[in-house]
């Protein structure tokens, strides 16, 4: 098979993975290093955008889409009829360098179907990363998808070369995993995540200790940490279950990111899957909820309170989760932007963390008025019913949350193309 064909097959097979982040690797560059290319530093860069609106930051490919597993949601499962291909490790190395030198990408995100065994597959992936780093002095970003069954030695080698490692939790509940990914084990996945967390923490501690004692710096281990992905809408888990699992992942394994991937129709789909994809809005609301949990001081119970009758708890698709909370809690508002503490400002619909900073800094210089708010570039229509400034008070706007909701929710849109 020609390289061009392989690339077509193995990029196509990788597109269901949501992660594209190339951030968090710390500062590193090639200047004065006697050869090689590559740098990382803080924010990742999106080098292109595809017509699905997603960022192209990394060369995201599979080493091979041959796979011995039969996960029903996966286009590469053993029982699927897709075209198969396999890269040689040096082909991936060459592609990564060629693309990088033309400034197409920030680095490589390598994943793979399982061939022969977890260890055999992981060994090949680690070899790609090793060759990039050691043979070609590549200092760009490397993200390796880790195979939970791989041996600890291989995980250690993967972390030495990669900036980020990830293991997909796949589904929000263990029952879902048993039903849809019979070859995978929830305990095995958790065990491997725990092992990664332990190694990441240990390497960080060692480096801190070395800095204190001014001894030689020990090697890094996945300095950009670990992330994971959950498929939403392929099993019956509700949003509450998804968010509970996220909190457990953030707290238990110090995940840098949990990605949510709305189950997408795949060619040659299994009959065990639901017939229809969940609305993309669901994925979007979950990301918003995830942000509220991590940066806004919200708890899961605030965002997705359990229904008293035990029915499924789903996020409101029409209004964002912060606005939904505000409409359930009119007694909390209006918030006085000139006096309220940071935690209260973070609860105001339409006011993001950046703007909260701006409000806090600016009110030290002047009593805030409507005129100041217009410079926030925040959605005023959404914000004004919930805030008070020198020359504005929402009066009765909060007396009837239902009417307010009707005013703020976007008009119903046409159902999606094939809905």
């Amino acid at each position, binding site marked *: 098979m020609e390289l061009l064909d392989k690339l077509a097959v193995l990029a196509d097979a990788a597109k*269901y993975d949501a992660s594209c982040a190339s951030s968090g690797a710390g500062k590193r560059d090639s200047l004065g290093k006697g050869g090689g290319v590559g740098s990382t530093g803080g924010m990742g860069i999106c080098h292109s*955008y595809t017509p699905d*609106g997603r960022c192209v930051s990394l*060369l995201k490919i599979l080493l091979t889409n041959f796979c011995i597993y039969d996960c029903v949601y996966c286009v590469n499962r053993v029982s699927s009829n897709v075209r198969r291909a396999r890269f040689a490790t040096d082909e991936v190395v060459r592609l990564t360098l060629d693309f990088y030198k*033309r400034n197409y990408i920030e680095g490589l995100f390598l994943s793979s179907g399982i061939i022969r065994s977890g260890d055999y597959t992981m060994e090949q992936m680690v070899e790609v990363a090793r060759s990039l780093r050691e043979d070609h002095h590549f200092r760009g970003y490397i993200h390796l998808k880790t195979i939970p069954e791989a041996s600890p030695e291989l995980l250690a080698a993967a972390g030495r070369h990669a900036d980020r490692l990830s293991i997909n939790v796949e589904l929000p509940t263990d029952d879902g995993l048993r039903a849809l990914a019979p070859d995978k084990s929830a305990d095995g996945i958790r065990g491997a995540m725990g092992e990664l967390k332990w190694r990441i923490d240990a390497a960080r501690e060692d480096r801190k200790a070395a800095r204190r004692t001014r001894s030689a710096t020990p090697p890094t281990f996945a300095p950009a940490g670990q992330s994971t992905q959950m498929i939403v809408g392929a099993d019956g888990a509700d949003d509450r279950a998804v968010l509970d699992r996220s909190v457990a992942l953030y707290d238990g394994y110090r995940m840098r990111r949990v990605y949510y991937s709305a189950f997408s129709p795949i060619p040659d789909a299994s009959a065990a899957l639901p017939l229809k994809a969940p609305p993309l809005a669901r994925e979007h609301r979950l990301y918003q909820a995830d942000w509220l949990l991590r940066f806004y001081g919200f708890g899961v119970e605030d965002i997705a309170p359990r229904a008293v009758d035990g029915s499924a708890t789903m996020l409101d698709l029409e209004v964002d989760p912060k606005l939904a909370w505000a409409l359930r809690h009119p007694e909390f508002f209006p918030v006085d932007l000139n006096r309220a503490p940071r935690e209260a400002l973070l609860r105001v619909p339409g006011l993001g963390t950046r703007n909260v900073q701006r409000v806090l800094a600016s009110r030290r*210089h002047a009593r805030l008025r409507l005129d100041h708010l217009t410079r926030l570039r925040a959605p005023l229509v959404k914000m004004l019913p919930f805030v008070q400034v020198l020359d504005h008070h929402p009066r009765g706007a909060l007396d009837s949350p239902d009417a307010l909701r009707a005013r703020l929710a976007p008009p119903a849109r046409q159902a999606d193309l094939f809905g």
Partner: protein
Amino acid sequence: MAADLHSATVDPPWDLDAWRQSARAALRACIAPAQMAWSDASDASLFGAPPALAQAPLRASPPVARAFLPLAARVLAHRDPQRHALLYRLLWRMAEGEPRLLAHGLDADVFRARALEKTVRRDLHKMKAFVRFREVLGAHEEFVAWFEPDHHILDLVAPFFVRRFAGMRWAILTPYRSARWDGSTLAFGAGARPGDAPQADAREDLWRTYYANIFNPARLNPRMMRQEMPQKYWKHLPETHTLPTLLREAGSRVRDMAQRDAEPSRKPVLVSRTRARCENGVRSTYRKT
């Protein structure tokens, strides 16, 4: 009043040191912002007004907030003709009793400066993202890119490319200025024309193939794509040549997938779950497709 007017010429107009010299002299000579007329090198309309640089100092330079100079460097890169005057107004106000002015993000002058800075930052970010190098035929590991930034940002962005591509030889050509890295030194030169850069690169086919296959037609969202990758950049990006086809065919690709749902798998699970866990023998079944 014209009689009180002082002039300052910033050359080149994006240069922090050039602006700073005039601003410092004007501040020390106590020339209020309304009495200053700023101009680019090309602009001769202020002929006759005495240059601020020549005025005798009446006071020492007041201290300036540390955050001001990086802000000024980025604002100067903006093409807005008012930027020199705006920066001087900020400097003047900080010296005249508002030392913490920059923290007041909702003040009209600070807000304007931050808005210009934000535009320049975005331009910088997009340039880091959308520059596309092409290999020079016949040369070993030498690359050239043609790019048209909105603002005068080449001097600000070039160090990024130096750090990233230190091990290559490269040049970035723009209409107003060019930057060259020979592996050890960064040099700036005159502006160029699109024809001065290579017109193709052998790897672009691979890149276009990748781009066409990494996108999911079931999630079409061209509005988002245009917002993040405005059309004005498309001419620099080899991958966008495939866009019309990708957009046109997305719908039918998704319908094809949906229809295939109904078909039974042509290769029904050949390997039972217990056998699927065996380490050998499975690959050969699927090797040829």
